[in-house]
């Protein structure tokens, strides 16, 4: 459904951020993309949704296919209209708009009446219906995340990119968000590319996972396999129960990277 081949992205003409990234998101699946901060996950999403140029970035190599259409080099509105939606990191609801206005903006690329699609969103997120006339800026973090997802869904995308939906949310809310992602995927058949720091959460619902590091894909395995991988557990998933306490880490361990 969505495939990226050998993608290179450069910022400000000099900083090479993606160094030949390839991945595939099959139709109807949830695919997780993991990686530390600065690994290039957000850059990859920007490249996919055509938001690179406002950050002075440029695709210098490679291609992106949505279905069988090459969409690299398209601008964001065209990509959205082609059926690829994105929920940006940090939610970014229009704080001064009402909930309903936010949803209407989400349907910008659609012609005709939006009433039906917005009603569908309200069924999916009943809390948004309760708050439809409220100013979005006053919603709680979790509600804002739901609004952001709802807003992207109004456009009825075939593929949706979710950038760190769990960021800064309490565990209880993260659980809810997780359920909703699964629901969207199952009920609407929407293909999902889920970018997360919270690997446990992402891998628990994804079929497949990629791990990025320094602008490259370093691992590419079924989600279940990744969950089992010890390195991944230790490095990206937070430390396992057997790990030593921070208090016991010796100075030399901290220094090792600088010595090499």
């Amino acid at each position, binding site marked *: 459904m969505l495939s990226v081949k050998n993608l290179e992205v450069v910022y400000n003409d000099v900083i090479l951020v993606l160094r030949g990234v390839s991945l595939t998101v099959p139709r109807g699946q949830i695919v997780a993309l993991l990686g530390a901060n600065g690994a290039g996950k957000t850059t990859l999403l920007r490249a996919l949704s055509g*938001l690179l140029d406002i950050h002075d970035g440029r695709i210098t190599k490679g291609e992106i296919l949505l279905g069988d259409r090459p969409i690299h080099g398209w601008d964001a509105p065209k990509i*959205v*209209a082609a059926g690829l939606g994105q929920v940006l990191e940090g939610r970014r609801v229009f704080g001064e708009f009402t909930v309903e206005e936010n949803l209407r903006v989400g349907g*910008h690329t659609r012609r005709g009446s939006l009433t039906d699609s917005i009603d569908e969103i309200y069924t999916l997120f009943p809390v948004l219906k309760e708050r439809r006339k409220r100013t979005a800026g006053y919603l709680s973090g979790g509600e804002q995340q739901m609004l952001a997802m709802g807003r*992207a869904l109004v456009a009825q995308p075939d593929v949706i990119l979710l950038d760190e939906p769990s960021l800064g949310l309490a565990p209880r809310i993260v659980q809810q968000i997780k359920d909703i992602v699964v629901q969207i995927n199952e009920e609407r058949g929407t293909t999902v590319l889920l970018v997360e720091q919270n690997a446990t959460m992402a891998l628990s619902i994804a079929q497949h996972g990629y791990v990025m590091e320094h602008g490259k894909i370093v691992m590419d395995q079924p989600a279940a396999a990744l969950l089992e991988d010890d390195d991944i557990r230790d490095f990206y998933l937070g430390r396992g129960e057997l790990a030593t306490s921070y208090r016991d880490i010796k100075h030399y361990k901290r220094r090792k990277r600088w010595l090499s």
Partner: protein
Amino acid sequence: MNQFAQAILNGFSQGAIYALLALGYVMIYKATHVISFAQPALMVCGGLFSYHLTAQIGLPFWPGLLLAMILGALLGMAVERLALRPMVGKPVFTLAIITIGVDIVLRIAANRYMGANPRIVTFPDGSRQYEFLGLSITHQRVALIAVTAITVVALVMFFRYAKAGLAMRATALNQETALAQGIRVGAIFALAWAIAGGLATIAGTFVAAGSAGMEQNTWIIALKALPAIIIGGLDSLPGAVIGGLAVGIVESLTAVYQPDVAPFLGANFALVAPYALMFLVLLVRPYGLFGTREVERV
């Protein structure tokens, strides 16, 4: 008392012009976060479009104005496309200086067209007087106030209900997010400039229909809208209208009463009265009467 009411009425109708111009500034500011110093040139060009279409080509006033508004909108879009689009994302003050460059270029071209003679748009039956309650107002001024009112209502409807209006507000709040919703931000910028160009054309046309027409120095009128938008709040459309009217009224009252009441302020204090009002408003409300306060977040 009558003099007082008349001064307010005169100021109100003059303020309608400032309000139209201020709306243009606010439109561009909201969409692009730029103060456009090219508004004076747009006003002058708009007035000249009307002049050319009515006096030279012979269209009647209203169709002429409508066509001129389209031309003014196109001019605004052209300015945005040629001078500002390449600079998207650069510091706003760089953009502001660019608009000054644009203003210089456009006004020189307009001066070339005007030459030595003021260009006067004839408003049908414009000098007919209406009298009520001892106040008098010309037919032309009544038309100006009516047109301004219609414009304001139309703008409000546009922003509240039209898809493009909503998209425009969204873009004003956050460009990247707007892009991610499929909104063509470039088109929104162009639209903002087009609307500003159209508004400037209405203002310019009514200036050119005034007693002295449009001449090479008339552009300065557009600067009066600057204190107006600060008084109202840079990003507030109702603020622009109220600010524009307030500037007109304060100016008129100062012109009439200051020489007697406060002669120590010097001759022609009315010239700077809008700025004095602006200072007063800002002392109380640092973001204007209706402006959005930037929230301090850490």
